[in-house]
């Protein structure tokens, strides 16, 4: 019988390992892309166009995952594409988290007019369709890495502030907050030392989720050719190119799509696993 409990407890561990493993692989690939890429991701070879992946008839072992319609090596392009995807995930995810969680904590614990202003702002923000909003922002800011990151932060901070606000409000009503107040702790001290640790598991889960979303948003922007300059390989850009030759060379579309899928899935699973890990009751 006690085995059943053991298995339940093992599951989040496995989830953490699988998702963490994939993300670690991706980080290594991104960091060492110039060293491990078999080809220059931008080099075209029209004689080697649309070569299939290695297990198919007519494949060239020099091009492990095949080539696109301009004869560029898919594997190399994906490795370089991972660089942009991960940079955006980490930087945009973290910044969004900082902005959103801070505003949420202020609104949820300090309440009053700050809450009024922040909450109304969130309401207004949520009325915009996010992808259109992003495209509009890029159109105004111009393309480039900074613009993508700014766009993601500007669109998605509400995701954090809404959840963190609700969580901070319910924690703020607890007796331990009253006790800390009686003991003469300042409001800021209470927010940071008492409320924040209890909201942290939620923030961590949201943060990793947000990283996944950032990867998707980056892919969408790349797909519509609005991320970084077009000569740099991006997963979204590859998907867009692969779409035009789906019947002749499915692999051009499928490989970056699988990478995107696994990455987003890993981020969300990592978040779930970490949330359990950070929660003292479940730990």
């Amino acid at each position, binding site marked *: 019988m006690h085995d059943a409990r053991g298995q339940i407890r093992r599951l989040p561990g496995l989830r953490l390992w699988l998702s963490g493993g994939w993300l670690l692989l991706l980080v290594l690939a991104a960091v060492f892309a110039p060293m491990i890429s078999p080809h220059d991701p931008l080099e075209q070879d029209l004689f080697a166009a649309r070569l299939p992946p290695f297990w198919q008839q007519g494949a060239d072992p020099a091009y492990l995952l095949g080539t696109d319609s301009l004869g560029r090596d898919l594997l190399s392009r994906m490795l370089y594409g991972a660089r942009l995807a991960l940079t955006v995930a980490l930087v945009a995810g973290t910044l969004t988290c900082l902005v959103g969680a801070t505003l949420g904590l202020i609104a949820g614990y300090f*309440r009053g007019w700050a809450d009024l202003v922040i909450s109304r702002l969130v309401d207004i923000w949520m009325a915009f369709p996010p992808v259109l909003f992003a495209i509009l922002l890029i159109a105004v800011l111009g393309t480039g890495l900074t613009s993508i990151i700014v766009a993601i932060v500007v669109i998605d901070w509400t995701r954090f502030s809404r959840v963190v606000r609700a969580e901070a409000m319910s924690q703020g009503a*607890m*007796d*331990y907050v*009253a*006790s*800390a*107040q*009686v*003991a*003469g*702790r300042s409001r800021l001290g209470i927010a940071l030392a*008492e409320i924040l*640790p*209890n909201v*942290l598991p939620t923030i961590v889960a949201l943060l990793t989720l947000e990283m996944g979303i950032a990867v998707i948003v980056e892919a969408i922007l790349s797909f519509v050719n609005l991320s970084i300059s077009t000569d740099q390989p991006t997963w979204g850009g590859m998907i867009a190119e692969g779409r035009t030759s789906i019947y002749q060379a499915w692999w051009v579309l499928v490989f970056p799509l699988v990478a995107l899928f696994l990455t987003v899935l890993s981020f969300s699973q990592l978040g779930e696993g970490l949330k359990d890990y950070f929660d*003292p*009751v479940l730990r």
Partner: protein
Amino acid sequence: MSYLTIKDLTVRLKNGVPLLRKVSLEVKSGEVRALVGESGAGKSMIGKAVLGILPRAAKLTGGEILLDGEDLLTLPPKARRAKIGAKVALIPQDPLTALNPSRRVGPQITDRLVDILGWKRKQAEDRAAELLDEVHIQSPERVMRSYPHELSGGMRQRILIASAFAAEPKLIIADEPTTALDVTVQKQILKLIREMQERHDTALLFVTHDLGVVSKISQSLTVLYAGMVIEETDVRTFFAEPGHAYSRALLAATPKYTDPDGSLMPVPDSIISQVEQQVAAFDAQLKR
């Protein structure tokens, strides 16, 4: 000598509805005063007003709260917080939410000693272990390293008591400290609070709706109805010959093991309407 004196304390909701109607009471040094009344009578509100943790919707609109002869309400906020922190402590009602779930128990006790008395962490830890020993917790070191969810409700309430007495306050406000516990644990906790109060010679304002508890712990009591003081007396007089009809009705409503038929009487409507009239008359007088 009176340590806490409350004079004409008035608390209203933001929309003007009164919660406390010119409440006056005092707690002498080293004395235990019970504050009794039905739910919603404003018992806890008095404690919260003294501690400066009134809920957002409530507003203190008049009166004085003298702590050790000094009016808390005229002090600037920072000085007031410091004074309350150093002299008054709270034993909260629900031990399950009164400890921060994501922090170990030890630091939550030592925080006060470090914050209020400016002690070193190590010194505070030794004192916390001593206090846990005083509230009869075995292996204090292990408990201090635990998270609240690893401990039972009774254990947590003991920890909260230890932590309330930690900085040697002169006054402790206990807000129904036994209500959330089951009856057998209630009795131990009550005994413990009494024991600690006597040993540390602390004044205690004990908020409760349980008259059985009152007879065991306090020397004097104040009966509250709708935020108004109905009767103020010492415990012996109260149980022998309660002065107000409402007090008599409250007593009759208390279950008694020795007299199962004569106890547990609901408070009669006639008496409710009598006190309601008294409250209405008081409000009318206030308006004039």
